[in-house]
């Protein structure tokens, strides 16, 4: 196969776009893990559910519980509405799935998140049915063409929004009191409580923040994926692998891990075989675990000890 710079650039953009989505969802995993010490297996549903809510209000006609509704609200309004709803969702999730079980060890909480995940997927099927739903793109054109180069504007949007979110996250964690409280809670909840951090509130904010990261991922990727009840689970699986590659608990690790998995699977599919894309990603995962069990960026939890 000859080297084609145009194809390589297209692969890079696509890989970075999907990698960005994995990174955002991986960040959600890591933030919750750092805050409460458990993996949230409903993280994928934080992507799927708001996407369904968004298409419900965006499309001219959509069946909800078998009845066709015609809301079709303006795009900006719908995005804001979905973000507000997901703030409530994050708080509710914290209150129902985590808070009552917080003193019973990690296992009941993990089971609880799995339960919520199954519930939300089945609820989505019940409410919106099995048909995949197309989320309208923000762009009038599907492709920007410059000579032989064809780039999806949605890919560029995903990469751009992710870059802004990462910068925002850096600012939040390094420059604000709230961010410092979140970091303190992640490092040692008992000590954070002793120095006056309201840990319960910080945990709730972490769930909300993770839900918002999932929501933004869903809104960004849905025009490429279509909205289905499985969309979140597929992303979450890769994002989980990404967070392990980066070092579970490490925020830079989640970002680098996500981007790496996205880029490697796209290039692997092109240069090795698309049949083994998943295998390539998971061989890398196993390789990292064997050579560097703490992941590329170490594990923050290990630092607690």
């Amino acid at each position, binding site marked *: 196969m000859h080297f084609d710079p145009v194809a390589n650039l*297209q692969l890079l953009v696509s890989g970075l776009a999907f990698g960005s989505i994995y990174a955002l969802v991986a960040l959600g995993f890591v933030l919750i893990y750092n805050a409460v010490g458990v993996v949230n297996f409903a993280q994928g549903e934080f992507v799927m559910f708001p996407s369904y809510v968004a298409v419900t209000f965006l499309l001219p006609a959509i069946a909800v519980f078998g009845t066709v509704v015609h809301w079709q609200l303006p795009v900006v309004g719908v995005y804001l509405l979905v973000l507000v709803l997901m703030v409530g969702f994050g708080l509710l999730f914290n209150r129902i799935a985590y808070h009552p079980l917080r003193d019973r060890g990690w296992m009941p909480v993990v089971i609880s998140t799995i339960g919520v995940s199954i519930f939300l997927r089945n609820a989505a099927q019940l409410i919106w049915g*099995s048909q995949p739903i197309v989320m309208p793109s923000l762009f009038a054109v599907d492709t920007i063409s410059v000579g032989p180069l*064809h780039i999806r504007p949605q890919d560029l949007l995903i990469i751009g929004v992710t870059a802004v979110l990462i910068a925002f996250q850096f600012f939040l964690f390094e420059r604000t009191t709230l961010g410092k409280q979140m970091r303190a809670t992640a490092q040692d909840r008992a000590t954070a409580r002793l120095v006056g951090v309201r840990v319960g509130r910080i945990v709730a904010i972490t769930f909300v923040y993770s839900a918002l990261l999932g929501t933004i991922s869903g809104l960004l990727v849905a025009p490429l994926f279509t909205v289905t009840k499985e969309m979140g689970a597929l992303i979450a699986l890769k994002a989980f692998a990404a967070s392990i590659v980066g070092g579970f608990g490490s925020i830079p690790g989640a970002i680098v891990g996500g981007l790496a998995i996205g880029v490697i699977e*796209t290039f*692997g599919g092109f240069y090795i075989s698309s049949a083994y894309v998943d295998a390539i990603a998971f061989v890398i995962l196993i390789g990292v675990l064997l050579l560097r069990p703490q992941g590329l960026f170490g594990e923050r939890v290990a630092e607690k000890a």
Partner: protein
Amino acid sequence: MRLDRKNFLATTGAAAAGAAFGFPAIVGAAPEPIRIGSVPCLTGSNALLGQQEHEGIALAVEEINARSDKVYGGRPFEIVEEDATNDNQSAVSALNKLLGENVVAIVCPVLSTQIQAMAPVMKTHDVPWMTGGTAVKNTQLGVTNLFRLRGSDGITAAGMTNFAVQDKKAKRVAILHASDAFGTGGAEQIVLNLKKIGLEPVANEQYPKDAKDFTAEILKIKQANPDAVLMYIQNPSDTAIILKQARSLALTAPIIGSPSLGNQTAMEVAGKDAYGTYCAVDFIVGFNSNVATHFLTAFYNKYHHLPDVGTGSGWVYDAVFMLADTYKKQKSTDPKQTIASLKGIKNWNGVLGAFSADAEGNMIHAVSIGQNQDGKLRLVKKVTG
């Protein structure tokens, strides 16, 4: 007998007691229902196909049970449904569960990979198995009581290949297929058909289950510079996403797909990105028999959306009516007798056309090549296997 208060109480009391203790003759019990099993993929990434099967079966059962004689002798159909989900193991478990439910026939899932996983269990039971799975191998696994109610991939792949080479004058043919049994089997058939005419595919790409980014596959195919791209994919959602991504990456070669490309949902989801594409399908609206016209109308009236006739609701509707006709004719639901009757089916008219069983259990022997013209599927030609 004089019906005074004492006699009335004695009679009704006996009847009530009889009913309670299972003596239906005393109260004239309803005829025993005929239990048919169904194993659609109701959850998981193929839930759309399962939902379509569920709807097709429910419509057929409703229509049959509304007849005065029901199936025969007043006996209605009763459907026992188990979810095959999205993996082979669950499908086999669901099948085993159904076999303990006293069913006399089973409508299998449409996924060939699940049918092939079920084959070892199927071989050990004398039950008529009705399937819409089109992989050629399905009817060559030694399950002698399996009946396929759709055209096999052999016919479909030959139709697609010949259309690409003869009608579209393609010399450089690329293949994109799913990595499941359906996609792999179909791609093998295309390669075989290309070989017969002295051609090799210029690219043969497969994608893993649940993939959503097809950039690598599309760019590889584009780099091979094909005159036509043949897609062999079962999942309508995958088909739609691939079409969208292919168009956004400026893949301009004509696309000729397996039946999922003509699937109503795939066409709706892909929208204008599917315009101009071709597909080999079991059924095209507008070129149908009275049975099909009735099915389309009744389906729309019941569900308020159009059915996916070939891949989803049509073949199961045919399967249930074919079983009903067979039971009515033989006045029995004996599975062995039913299997013998189904093997002798000749020119039975259903939604998907005229059914005649061959030695392997194939009942449909033709497909149509259609083109998506502004969102509507139009007949281009008929292909007989």
